[in-house]
C-alpha cells in the first residue's frame, strides 16, 4: 500500500519558512553577490570581481576602524568576563538582598542602548558632566573624555612625565613606519574610545553575571563539601573546582560577548562626534564604517556588503577557533 504524501508538517513550518527564507536566507546569499558588483541605491551595477575587497585593503579608514574594533573587543571581553565572574561568585555566596543586587546589575541589560548612550554622553560632557565633576571634586584636572583623541597609553605615560610622542617620532623614523600608524598602534585606544569601552562593559555586565550565576548554581555542592573537609581555602576552591566546572559557561560568555562587541554601533552613533566616529576617527568601528559607506554620502552598498562579509568572516573564524579550544578543554 502506498502511503499518501503528508503535506501537513510543511504547512506548519511554511509561515516561518517564508519569512526566514525571504528576509534571512535570500539577503545573506544576496550580500555575497552584491559584494562583487558596484551596486548603489539606484540599482544593480556591473560585475567588478574582487575590486571592493581590494579597495578595502587599501582603505586607511577601514584599517583604522578595524583597529578600533579590535581595541574594543580586547578591552571589553576580558574585563567583562572577569568582573561578571567575580560578581556572580559574590552573589552566589550571599542570601540576603541577593535578588535586589541581581536586579540592580541587570537593569542596564533591559534598557535601550539609545537612552543609555544619551545619558553617558552627558556624563562624559566636559563642562556639565558627572565624570569631570567627580574628578575635580577629588582634586584632579578635568579631562576631555569623548573629545580626547590621544591614546590612553600616551595620556598615562605623559602624566608620568614621559615624552610619548617624541618617542614615537624617533621610533617611527627608525623602523620606517608613519608616525600616525605607529601612534595608533602603540598609543592604545583613544580616551574617547575608552569611554565607549566603559559603557559597553557596563551595559553587558548584568547579562554575563546572570549567565555565570546560573552556571554556578549548577555546580554540585558535594565538590565544595569535599574540599572543605580536605581543608582547601575559598580561593583554592575557586581555582580548583569552580573555574573548571564553569568553563562551558565561560566559553559561552566569551563567544557571545565577542560577537556582540564586534557589532557595536548604537553607542558610537549616539555618543561620538560630530562627526560620528570622532575625534580624529578614533572611535569609528567597523559596523559604523559600513553603515556610513552604505547609507552615507557615497551610498556604496556593494562596498558596505563586502565590509560586512569580512566582519562575518572574522566573527566566524573566532567562533570556530573558540569551539575548537572548547573541545580541547573538555575531555
Amino acid at each position, binding site marked *: 500500500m502506498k502511503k499518501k504524501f503528508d503535506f501537513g508538517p510543511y504547512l506548519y513550518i511554511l509561515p*516561518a519558512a517564508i*519569512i526566514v527564507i525571504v528576509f534571512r536566507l535570500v539577503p545573506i546569499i*544576496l550580500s555575497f553577490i552584491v559584494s562583487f558588483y558596484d551596486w548603489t541605491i539606484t540599482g544593480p551595477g556591473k560585475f567588478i570581481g574582487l575590486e571592493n575587497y581590494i579597495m578595502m585593503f587599501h582603505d586607511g579608514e577601514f584599517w583604522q576602524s578595524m583597529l578600533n574594533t579590535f581595541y574594543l573587543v580586547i578591552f571589553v571581553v576580558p574585563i567583562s568576563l572577569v568582573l561578571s565572574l567575580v560578581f556572580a561568585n559574590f552573589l552566589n555566596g550571599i542570601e540576603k538582598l541577593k535578588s535586589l543586587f541581581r*536586579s540592580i546589575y541587570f537593569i542596564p541589560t533591559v534598557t*535601550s542602548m*539609545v537612552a543609555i548612550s544619551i545619558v553617558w554622553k*552627558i556624563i562624559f560632557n566636559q563642562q556639565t558632566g558627572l565624570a569631570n565633576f567627580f574628578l575635580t571634586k577629588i582634586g584632579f584636572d578635568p579631562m576631555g573624555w569623548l573629545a580626547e583623541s590621544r591614546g590612553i597609553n600616551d595620556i598615562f605615560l605623559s602624566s608620568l612625565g614621559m615624552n610619548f610622542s617624541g618617542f614615537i617620532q624617533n621610533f617611527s623614523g627608525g623602523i620606517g613606519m608613519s608616525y600616525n600608524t605607529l601612534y595608533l598602534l602603540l598609543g592604545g585606544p583613544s580616551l574617547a574610545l575608552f569611554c565607549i569601552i566603559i559603557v559597553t562593559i557596563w551595559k553587558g555586565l548584568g547579562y554575563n553575571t546572570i*549567565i555565570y550565576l546560573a552556571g554556578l548554581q549548577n555546580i554540585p555542592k558535594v565538590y565544595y563539601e569535599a574540599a572543605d573537609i580536605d581543608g582547601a581555602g575559598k580561593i583554592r576552591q575557586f581555582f580548583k573546582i569552580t573555574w573548571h566546572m564553569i568553563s562551558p559557561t565561560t566559553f559561552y560568555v566569551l563567544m557571545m560577548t565577542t560577537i556582540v562587541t564586534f557589532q557595536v554601533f548604537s553607542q558610537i552613533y549616539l555618543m561620538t562626534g560630530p562627526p560620528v566616529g570622532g575625534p580624529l576617527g578614533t572611535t569609528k568601528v567597523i559596523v559604523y564604517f559600513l553603515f556610513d559607506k552604505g547609507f552615507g554620502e557615497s551610498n556604496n552598498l556593494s562596498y*558596505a556588503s563586502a565590509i560586512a562579509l569580512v566582519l562575518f568572516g572574522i566573527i566566524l573564524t573566532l567562533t570556530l577557533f573558540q569551539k575548537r579550544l572548547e573541545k580541547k578543554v573538555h575531555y
Partner: protein
Amino acid sequence: MKKSISYIILSVCGLFMVIPFIWMLTTSVKSQLEVNKGNVGFLPIEHYSTYEENGKVFRITSVKVDGDSTYIHIFDENMNRIRSYEKVLSSDIEEKTEVKLHFENYKEAFIKVPFQRYFINTLFVSFSVVFGVLITGSLAAYAFATMRFKGRDFIFYLFISMMMVPQPVYLIPSYVLLNHLGWIDTYNALIIPWIANIFTIFLLRQQFKTIPAELFDAARIDGCGRFRTLWTLVLPLSKSVIVTAAIFGFIGSWNSFMWPLIMTDSPGLRVLQVGLSYFSQEASAQTSLLMAASTFSILPLIILFLFAQKQIIASFASSGLKG
C-alpha cells in the same frame, strides 16, 4: 566576616551600576540654567539671589560689583526682567538656595517632538512582532518537535545556522530587497521581516520535545487532530516558555535601533529609539530635557522588569544554558 566583604564589594559596584540612572533622574528635574552654571551634582538645588525693596522680595541677577555696591537686574515672579542695571548696596543682596523639582521638563520634552506618536508606533510594532513571532514560532516548532517529514533536520539546521549570521551582513541586502518591494518607510519594513524568529523556534522546539509521547497518544485516541493537539495540549503546557519568548521578542523589538533607523525615513514612522536619537541631536545642549526624554523612554521596560524580574532574569539566564 567573609560575607561582609561580599556585601561591601557588591554595594560599591552596584552603586556604579545605578549612578547613571540616579543622575539621569536628578538631572531631568533640574532647570537648564542650573546645569549650565555647572551645578551638576546629584541634588536638584537652585542657587539664586534676592533683593528686598519696600518689603517686597525680588529675584535678581548681579551684573557687576563696584566697591560696596552691585549693579543688578531685577525680575518679577515670572522671571521677566522689570528693571536693569540698578545700583544697590551689596549687603542688601541675599544668597539663597532651595530644592526645586522641575517636573515640567518632562512635559516640555514630551511635546517638543511628537513622542506620543513614537510611543504608539513602538507599541504597535512591538506587539505585532511578538504576536507574529509566537504564531509562526509555535507552528514551526510544533512541526519540528513532533512530526516526521522529509528534510526536517536539514531545514532545522539551516535555520539554526542562519541564527549565527550577524545583522550587518543581511542589513544591506535587506534594504535593497525592501526597497524593491516598495516597503522602505512603511510599517511593513519594521514588522514583516521580524515576525519569524529562529531563536523562538529553537526555544519552543526544545520545550515541546519535553512533553511525553503518551500525552500525544492519548490525544490522538481521543480523536484530536494536529492543530487541536497544539492548541489544547501543547501550548497550555508551555506557558512559561511562551512568556519567555514573548519577553525576548518585546524587549528586542522595543530596543531595536539600527534597523528602524535605516528602514524608515519619515518622522511619522519613527519608533521611540529613532525619535529619541533625533531628539538627542536637536536638543543636544538641553541636558535636562534629554534626561527627561531618556527617562520616559526607558520607563515602560523598567516597569515591565520590576513586575516580572524573576521571570525575565530566569529567561535570560536560560538563554545561556543552551550552549
